[in-house]
């Protein structure tokens, strides 16, 4: 082997991964660091940033305490996540379990339930705008039998799962309901995990006289717990990133009266409508810290409820 080819040999791994490395540096590392620097500045995108210390973070704290701006958007996002994630999880597991039953046309049913996940978000958002129309929507057409005044959905500021207005569903509830549309993705993961559960566990349980519910409670759920944990974290991240559907149903404003202003839309409006890129960067970093803390908390708590085959991690 010549000296030249030896050198090439030494560098070839780096050459092979260089496109990815370049992408990582340009598209991830640089924006990551730049946004941290900008969060300590006032920056309107058009002129050079000016250092303002921790002013942006003080503003975040102020708005958080008063429940305005960032505080309001954070609450909206928390509410949306708190309603949509548990319901989506229950729905996805329920569907996966049912679609795992050996029945005629199983493949057809699986395809049917997965199909909605393939509809583009813009199209499904417009569809849901029609479905949840307070006056002419099909959903309220059914609910009219149970409600004297059916929910306002995207036109309402109410929160159906909070104490002041129980069961009076508003814009955030509408968004949470919309999230069921994409439950097929989670369902698919659960379905794969269900197929991975060792049949001998069920056979052993049956020998011990376990019924269908007991098998689900003591075998299926614990065996699915790593996947539930994974989907939970994914769900939180998706809730924080929810943008397209919010933008469409609220005409890009978070209306009515900011009741559907989720944090990603607030960040977008701050950066590109109000031209406060410095403050928007601070919001992004505050969010990063909140998300990291929540994920860390989940990991800590997972020791008590997530069961890995072969023992805990």
């Amino acid at each position, binding site marked *: 082997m010549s000296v030249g080819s030896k050198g090439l040999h030494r560098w070839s791994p780096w050459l092979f991964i260089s496109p990815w490395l370049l992408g990582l540096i340009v598209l991830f590392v640089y924006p990551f660091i730049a946004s941290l620097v900008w969060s300590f500045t006032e920056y309107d995108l*058009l002129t050079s940033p*000016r250092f303002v210390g921790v002013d942006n973070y003080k503003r975040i704290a102020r708005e958080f305490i008063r429940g305005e701006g960032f505080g309001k958007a954070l609450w909206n996002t928390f509410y949306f996540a708190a309603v949509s994630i548990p319901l989506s999880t229950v729905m996805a597991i329920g569907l996966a379990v049912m679609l795992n039953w050996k029945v005629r046309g199983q493949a057809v049913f699986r395809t049917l339930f997965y199909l909605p996940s393939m509809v583009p978000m813009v199209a499904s958002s417009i569809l849901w705008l029609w479905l949840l129309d307070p006056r002419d929507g099909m959903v309220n057409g059914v609910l009219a039998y149970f409600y004297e005044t059916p929910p306002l959905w995207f036109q*309402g500021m109410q929160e159906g799962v909070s104490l002041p207005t129980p069961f009076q569903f508003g814009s955030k509830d509408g968004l949470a309901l919309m999230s069921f549309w994409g439950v097929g993705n989670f369902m698919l993961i659960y379905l794969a995990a269900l197929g991975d559960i060792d049949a001998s566990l069920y056979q052993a349980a049956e020998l011990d006289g376990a019924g269908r519910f007991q098998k689900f409670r003591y075998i299926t759920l614990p065996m699915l717990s790593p996947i539930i944990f994974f989907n939970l974290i994914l769900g939180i991240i998706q809730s924080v990133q929810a943008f397209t559907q919010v933008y469409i149903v609220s*005409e890009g404003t978070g209306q009515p*009266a900011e009741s559907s202003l989720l944090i990603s839309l607030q960040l977008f409006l701050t950066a590109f*409508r109000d*031209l406060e890129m410095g403050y928007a960067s601070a919001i992004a970093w505050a969010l990063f810290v909140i998300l990291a803390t929540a994920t860390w908390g989940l990991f800590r708590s997972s020791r008590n409820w997530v069961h890995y085959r072969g023992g805990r991690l």
Partner: protein
Amino acid sequence: MFRKVSGALLLLLSVIILIWGMSISLSSPSPDDREEVVFWHFWSGPDGEVVDDVIRRFNQSQDLYYVRGVSMPGNNFDMKLFLSVTGGDPPDLINQDDPIVADWAFRKAIFSMDEIAPLEEVEQMRKWLLPSARKLGEYDGRLYAVCNGLDVRALYFNRDIVEQALRREAPDELESLEQLDEIARLCTRYSDGELTQIGYLPDPRRLWVWGSIFGGDFYDESTGRVTPDDASIEKALRWMQSYRERLGANAVATYRQNDQSLPNKMFPLLAERYAIVLDGQWRVRDIEAAQQATNKMRGTVTRYGVWPLPSVSPNGKTGWVNGNVFLVPRHAKNSKGAWEFIKFWTGIDGNEAEAARTCAAGGWIPVSNAVAESPEFQSYLQSHPLFARFVELAATDQETTPLVPGANRYYREVNNLVQRMMYNDDSVDLSKELTALAEDMQQHIDRIRYRSLYKEGPERD
């Protein structure tokens, strides 16, 4: 065999897509030896065709400049522009309809027209424009934007419903606000206790209109302070609130349902869900299309009318206007060509007939009397009487959203407050809310001003 066939099909598809893509780029007209003017706008569909036609006519009339129009429908126009500015490759001309002129001018994101065109031509333009069109583009005594189409609001009404409710002919104009309230009440219908038709319902986004009609000012130029807590604005808000009290917040929210922005047959006036609607001149096209369709099917054609907003206060304006404006981003490579195109489109300097043709094709309100009074446009108005009322209104004393840095957020927050008040049955202390809003928005605007004052680093332009 199957693999081979599918592979061949895939290859064929790729080749077709490649040829199609190449044909697009090859068929783009070449600017020859003329200077290219890149023009970003948000029009598409029928309006986009009108814009393409204006560009084609301009390019035919020119041997110096060549306009290349780029349609960017959607709401993220601002973001794309800022990224292009930051990236150092902005377009030469853009069209906008948000209240951003003062904000962008203040941040030196756009040129003042006197920086790109001879001063005498700019002065001529200022005098030539209608006062409302001029107001939309002026900031700090300079013309930063040139209006190319005004959006005027008035009250559309279903003549059949109104006359049935009144049991006489509908008036040509409303004498007072009380008359509007009365007609609205008479036209509101219930069936088995359920609301089925609204007479009139103030849209939460239209405090800007009613506040001006009531004689309120949203901004005090002499002190540089925002004044949403103006007593007349509060009065207008209380009047809007009276509709919520009468109908209930639930009905108000249900009936609003983004209605005002819905197109064609979903327009609530055509669906007979409203008897009276406050909207802009672009609805004339929807109404005429619906009438023609009914006519074609030999059905009974519903009659519609337009009322100017009633006079409420001696200090009140006749309405609230916004519109489309041309802006030239800083660092534009061909601002001179952009100015020539602006002149062609608006109709100044002997281009009146061309501008009249544009306005008639798009159903747009001319920005100067010189165009509105041209024979071409007058003949268009004769065949579109509803539209003619809007053109008349455009020449009256119309108010605009304040031209102040941070106006975009100010506009949004005022609308948020009205939504909170209209969609909620809980009693809200309006004075307190408006005062808090004034303080909050003043802080926002001062923050922008302060930042500019203490800006460090390289030259702002």
